[in-house]
Every structure is written in C-alpha cells, then in structure tokens.
C-alpha cells in the first residue's frame, strides 16, 4: 500500500504543487490548511510523514509540532518543516522537527528529502 503523507500548508497553490509532486511519485497525500484540522486528521488517519508549514493561521506551525510531539502515538513520527524565513530553523529543530526546508525549494530536492525520510531508495525520475 502507498505510504501516507499529511501536508499542512495554508497557501493553496503551494499545497497543490506539493500534492501533485508526491502523488506523481506514488504517495498518498492528505491535506489540511490549518493546525486544528490537521491534528484531527492525524488521529483519524495516521500518516507516515508530516510536512508542516511554519506560518499558519490560528495555531502556528511550531504549536502544531509541539502538539504532535506531545502525543505518544506520534512522538516518533517524522516531520518536515517548511519555512519562508531563515531564522526559524533553530526554533523548529528545538521543537522537534526532523528536517527543514526553505521556500522556494526545487521539486527534486523535496522529493528526495521525502524519500529519505520514508526510508525508500532514491528512484530515478
């Protein structure tokens, strides 16, 4: 069965791009536009990987991450954080993000990162 990625991103266009890339790569992608909905989704349909935007309306990305890490179910879930600002890196890592990507990223880059995190061998496109 295809591995499951939860994408939490409020910019609809960015979300669509990432979803397209990952789906094309054979992954199942579910999407939430803000933190509270994402946490519900996380419990209903546990993913293998979370891609989390740093800047969200309502709960910020860091708050979502803290909530994810607080729950024993998802304590070890791999999380990749996206940000558009450089200095957020330390804060994200302190909160427990495994990987960190700065916008804008190249498509190949993000796919490679996701594969690494899911423990799959790199496929040639």
């Amino acid at each position, binding site marked *: 069965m295809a591995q499951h990625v939860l994408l939490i991103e409020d910019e609809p266009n*960015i979300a669509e*791009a*990432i979803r397209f890339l990952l789906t094309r790569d054979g992954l199942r992608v579910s999407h939430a536009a803000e933190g509270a909905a994402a946490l519900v989704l996380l419990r209903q349909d546990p993913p293998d990987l979370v891609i989390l935007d740093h800047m969200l309306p309502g709960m910020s990305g860091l708050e979502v991450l803290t909530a994810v890490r607080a729950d024993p179910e998802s304590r070890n879930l791999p999380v990749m954080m996206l940000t558009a*600002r450089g200095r957020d890196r330390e804060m994200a890592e302190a909160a427990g993000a495994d990987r960190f990507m700065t916008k*804008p990223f190249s*498509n190949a880059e993000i796919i490679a990162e996701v594969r690494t995190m899911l423990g799959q061998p790199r496929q040639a496109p």
Partner: protein
Amino acid sequence: MPFNLLVLACFLYVAFLFTVAFLVERRADRRRLGWLRSPLVYTLSLSIYCTAWTFYGAVGYAARSGLEFLTIYFGPTLVFVGWWWLLRKLVRIGRQHHVTSVADLISSRYGKSNTLGVIVTMLAVVAATPYIALQLQSVVLSFGVFASAAPDGSRPLEAGQIAVWVAVGLALFTILFGTRNLDAREQHHGIVTAIAVEAVVKLVALLAVGSFVVWGIAGGVADVIARIDAADLAAWQVQPGRWTGLILLSAAAVITLPRMFQVMVVENEDEGHLARASWAFPLYLLGMSLFIVPIAVVGLERMPAGANPDMFVLTLPLAEGQAALAMLAFLGGFSSATSMVIVESIALATMISNHVMIPLWLRLRPGAAEEDDLRSVVLMARRLAIAAVLALGYGYYQLSGGSAALASIGLIAFLGVAQVLPAMLGGIFWRGATRTGAILGLVTGLTVWAYTSFLPSFGPGAVLPETVFADGLFGLGWLRPHALFGTQAMDPIIHALFWSMALNVLAFCLGSLFTFPGPVERLQGAAFVNIFEGAVGPQRWARGRAEPEALLGMAQRILGEETALSLFQSAARAQGKEVFLPDPTPAFLDQLEARLSGSVGAATAHAMISQLVGRATVTVEDLMAVASESAQILEYSARLEAREAELTRTAGALREANEKLTQLSLQKDAFLSQISHELRTPMTSIRAFSEILTEGDLPAEAVMRYGRIIHDEAKRLTRLLDDLLDLSVLENGAVQLNLGLASLQGMIDTALTAARQTRPDRDFQVVRDLPAEAIYLRTDADRLTQVFINLISNARKYCDAPRAELRIVVLQRSGRVTVDFIDNGKGIPKESQALIFEKFARLTDANRAGGAGLGLAICREIMTNLGGSVAYLPGQRGAAFRVTVPLRLERLAA
C-alpha cells in the same frame, strides 16, 4: 368675542412660539446664531421676571395699595444698575464653574455638597409651586373674563379643563425644547428666543392698553394727572418698613429666583451682555409699569364697583368695545404666564434631576457610572421632573381652588427663595463661609419662612390650627406665627422677612465661624471668592489611578461621543501625545470634572470621577503644602508654569517616542524576515509549477491551470512590490496628487464594491448615512478611495462578530470632514493601537498569516499627503478608524 376664536388665537400663538424655538434650535445646531446671541435677546429674556402676577396683578396692586407695586421693580433696578459689583461676579463664576442652577452654585461652592443641593432644590420647589399655580390661575381667569362677556353666556370649557390643557401644553413645549440635548453648558437657545419674543408681546400689549387708556379714554397726560389726584388712591398711606422691606426683598429675589438665575447666569453667552442689560432691563421694567397707575385710576372710575381690579387690563378695553385690543392684552398676559412657567420648570427640573434623581440613581446602581447610558437617564429624569413640577403646580391650583389666597403668594414665594441669599452672597464674598454654616442658615431660614409666612398663607385653620395663630405653637405666646418674640406691630410679610432673614444670617454666620471647612470646600471657596484673580493654583485631584479609557467611556455617556472625543483629543495634544487618550493628570481630571458638571451638576460630577479615580482628592495637608509653596512661587508662577507645561509636553513626547522605539526595535528583525516571507511565498509556487511544466508530459487542462497559478502568483509578487514602492514614494512626499472635485458618497460606494472581493463569502452588514455623505470634496479621489477600501477590507477580514456590521459615520465641521469606520468586533487592544500603523505591524504575533501588513501604513501616508489623518478611535466597542480630510485641499507649492 366668540370664545372659540380666543382658543384658536391661543393655539396659533403657541404654534408661532414652537416655530420660533424650532428655527432657532436649528440655527444653533449649525452654529449660526448671529444676532440671536445679542445683548438685546439677553435683556428681553430677563423679562421673565415680569410674570402674569405683574402683568395683571400690578394694576390690582396699584388699585389696592397705591404706589407700593413699584417696590417690586425698584429692587431689580438697584441690583442691575449695580451689576459691576455683584451680577458680574455671579455670571463669571457661573461660566467658569459650569454652574447649572442656584442649587448647583451653592452645592459647588460649599465643597460640592449634595446635601446643600437637595435643600436648595427643595426650597425652590416649595416656593415655586404656588407661583406656577398662580400663573395657571391667571390664564383661567383671563379666559373667564372673555367667557362671561360672551353674549350667549355659554362656557365651552370649565376652568379646570383650561388649566389642565394649559399645563399639558406647557409641559410639552418645555420637554420638547428644554430637554433636546444635554448641552455641556445647559443652554437652550430656542427657549430663550421664544421668551424674548414673549417679552416683546407683553410689553407691546401693556403699552397699547395704557396708551388707549391715557389718550383714548382719558384726555391725555394732563387729564390723567388730574384724575390721579382726584382718585381714592390718595387715601393709601405708605408704611416705611414695608416700602424698604419690599425693595430689599425684590432685590434679593431677582438674584435667587430659579428662573432668573437660569436666564441671567446659566443662559448667559457673554459677560459683556450684562453691561447692556444693566440699563436696558430697568428700562424694560419702567416701560412695563409706566401705565399701571393710569389704568388703575381710570379702571376704578369706569368699572362697576365689584369689578376685579386684577383684570382691568382686560376688562377696560372690553367694556369700551375694543375687542382687538383686549385680545392683544390677553395674549400679553398669556405670554407672561407661559414664559414664566417654561423657564421655571426647566430650572427646577435641572435641579431635581441633578441633585435628587441622578444621585439616587447612582446610589441605587453603584456600577451605573460605568455601564448605563447616563445621557438618556439624565434626559429622562429631566422630562419626568418637568412633568412633575407642572403637575405639582396644577395640583396646588386645584387644592387652593383658585382662591384669592393665591394673590398674595407672589411675595411669599419671593421671600422663600430669598433665603438662599445669605449662603449665596456669603459664598462669593466670604472665604470663611462653610458648608455647615450654609446648611444651618438655609434650614433656619426655611423653617422660619414656612412657619411665619408660607403655612399661614393657606389661612387660619387650613394647615396651622387657629389656636396656633392666637396662642402660639404649644401655647407659647412668643411663638405666634405673626408675632414671633412678641413683635406684634409688624406687617405680616415684613415680620416674616425680618425674622427669617435675621435668623438665617445669624445661623449662617455662627455656623461658619465655629466650624472648620473640608479641603474641597476651602478650594472652592478660594476659587469662587477670588474668581477675578485668575485660576487658583492648587488642583482638586491628586494624580489618579483612573484608566483613561474608562474615563472616556464615562464622558461619552454624559457628553456624547463627539464632544467627549474632541475633549480628550485636545487634552492629549496639550500633553504632547498623538493618540486619543491623555494621561489622567490632576489638571486633566479638573478639566473633565468641570465639563461634566455642566451637564449633571458639580456634586454628581465630582462623585462620578471619584468613583473611577479612587480616593485621590487632596487632603488638608496637601493643601497646606501647596498654599505655603504657592505664596513663594506666585511671583515666578507664570514663567514656571510655562516651563512646566513645556516639560510635561516634552516628557510626554519622549515617553511616547521611547515606547515606540522599543517596540520598533523588537520588530526590526521581524520586518526583514517578513519581507523575506512575503516574497518567498509566491516564489515557491512559481518555482514548483514552472519546474513541473518544463518536465512536460501533462494534459492540456493541467498545463493551463498551472500556467494560471504561475500568473496569479507573479501578479501577487508585483502587487507587493508596488505596495512597497508606493509606500516609499508616499513617505518621501514625492507623490503626484490628482486633485479634483469628487463625491464622498461615490467614493464610499466604489470602496464598498471593491472591498467585497475580500472574503466574499462573508455576510456583512453596512450601515450608512447617505444624506450625511452628500458632500463634495476637493481631493485625490483615487487615493482617498484606496484608504477607504483598505479600512473596509480590514473590517471584513478581522471583524470577529458573528453578525458582522460596519457603521460608516460622516461628520462635517469647520472645513474638515471626518469619516468613521466602526465595526462591532472586539476591537484592537490598547497596547497595539499605537503600532498598527507601522509597516508590517500585524496584530498578535508575527506568526499569523494574512495580508502583508502594509495597508494601514500606506493609508497613513496617503492621508498625510492629502492634508488629513487616519487614526484609531478608542472607546467604540468595536474596532474603529477615523479618517479626517479637509473639505478643500489646496495644492501646496512643492
């Protein structure tokens, strides 16, 4: 004359007064009073001194007691020609301390004591009620004269019914024009002008009747003089005590009568008007009394023996077949009665509401000062009080059965209100006068007056049993009401005058000499007595702990939003602050208290501010410290004050600048990463989709869709860059303005349509005032519309109320237009209000997404360029922004 015609004439006349009052109020609203604020109108309005009692009664008085009626006019004449000595001081105090009534003056002078306010109010109401009844009676009697003269002898209306209708009509008029608004200075231009018109009517009426009598009936001046010498009146003998006493009494009454105080002090627009009134008002009185003696003499000669001399002014012309003249005289008498009742009931209603009803309300509901809409409470209290005063007057009329006993009530009422005189004069000339002294004096005077004059006026056996008259209270001979301490030889009214005033003054002086005044009392005493020496230094408030926002809320509920806001804004500016809220400094609290006391009276205003400030009024020790300092400082005070004011301003400005700097430096990093974020977000989509597209191998609709996304994001990027560029151009002042005439309504329409794109899903109620928006501005319409769009979009975006509503309020004044955008969300917290106009300053922490946060910064720059401003308006419940634009923006020479 048909009776119905008479009723019709009355109606027409009252309708005419309504129109006058209405037109004047409209002009007052537009601040175009012009000649309506002239000394002439002021002088004419003073003529409410002449009531129906003087209009009809003076002739009767002359017929019965010869020249004695003149004393009633001589007293006021002496007071007015001596205006420089007394009235000027009274008026100056009234203006500076926003005094609303006699009761307020006394209460304010003696430490803002409400007890005193209540005593004076009570006294005024008790003394005025019979007087109002007297006016109703005079109207009923004059109707009666016409009715009995009607050929068919039919009486369409009973006396009681007439009185009811007159009372109801007067209440309606007074409520309509007397409680329209709660002006900071309690002025009623419409009513004052209507009173002035009535003054002219009654003077013309009396002069016309007099001229008719002298030249129409008698054979000119010489003949009248001969008739006077031949008349029975010669039998009248002057009593020196009564002559002197009545002059003194009427002199006292003209200052202390509630209605006189109302027109003389409260409604006074300009101290200079007093100079004109000092001779013009006595001249008016002279005109009113010029023909009294001839009318009386000729009337006694001509009329049948049993005729009531009080009605000669009406019956003489009627008997001579001069119906039109009689009608004029009737209207004159009607004017005298109505104008007196209107002003008296306003004056009494102000006292009752400020000193009795509102304090009670505040005591019963301790939180009321912060919650209720006090404006409407006060106005409602006034309306009820007016109705109550008139109902009292009517009730008294019914009880007394319109008896002849009423005729003597005029002097008794004079004597009643004259009891205020010692406390009033002592208050403005003697710093040693104390609250206890004033209370003792007033209560003593009131008691003696009631016992020797007021209660006996109902007749032996009515209120006081006959045994009291014969043997004194408790059978003590020296307590007989008309012979206190065995003084039997005196005329009753002079007896009452002598004893009530003597004991009043004695109690007042002894009470003042043996008590020690409280701090507020001493301050007020110094402020009143030394009114001409400029502001007395020490302030009434120590630095308070009040939240300026709470103070603003309270002020808005009393003064109204606009007035309160502009008061606070100017105070803030004087402290060197740019926001709306000033610091609650002692000086500011003083200023605020003075303004509030203009609406609700000194005692209530003081109590309400104390409630918010906590116990922060000065103590005696503070006072002593300030006093000894001020003795040394006085010589340098002018210089020091100026320097201190400047220091305060600078300190305020510095503090504000520092606050802003700290906040800004905290935001410096956020600012940079914010730009980075705003640029990177669209870039991310563009980069991802363009890479996808270059890989090819996609269905055609996907290509189209991704192409559009790239296009949209590129546009977003451009917009952001435009905004940044726009801002920098605006900030450098290098902007090109496109000036032209444009309709404000059109601009708001455009802005509302454009802003609908923001959260189009939202159901948003917009409340507008289209007539107010019908203004043409000379400005840059596109730029101004841009500001409107921004503010409306913000409301759509951030207003969190479940049923979102946006009010757009337009006001025009003195060459500027303000447009307020007020939503019903939860507003912007106080600490953020100074920041929202900064670049990228978005509310809450920077991690919340939304617009770029440049909107308000751009708005501010645009408004600066348009010669106006945009500011956050605190105290509106929701978020509120005020845009101020000049009506005509002239192109500045660059």
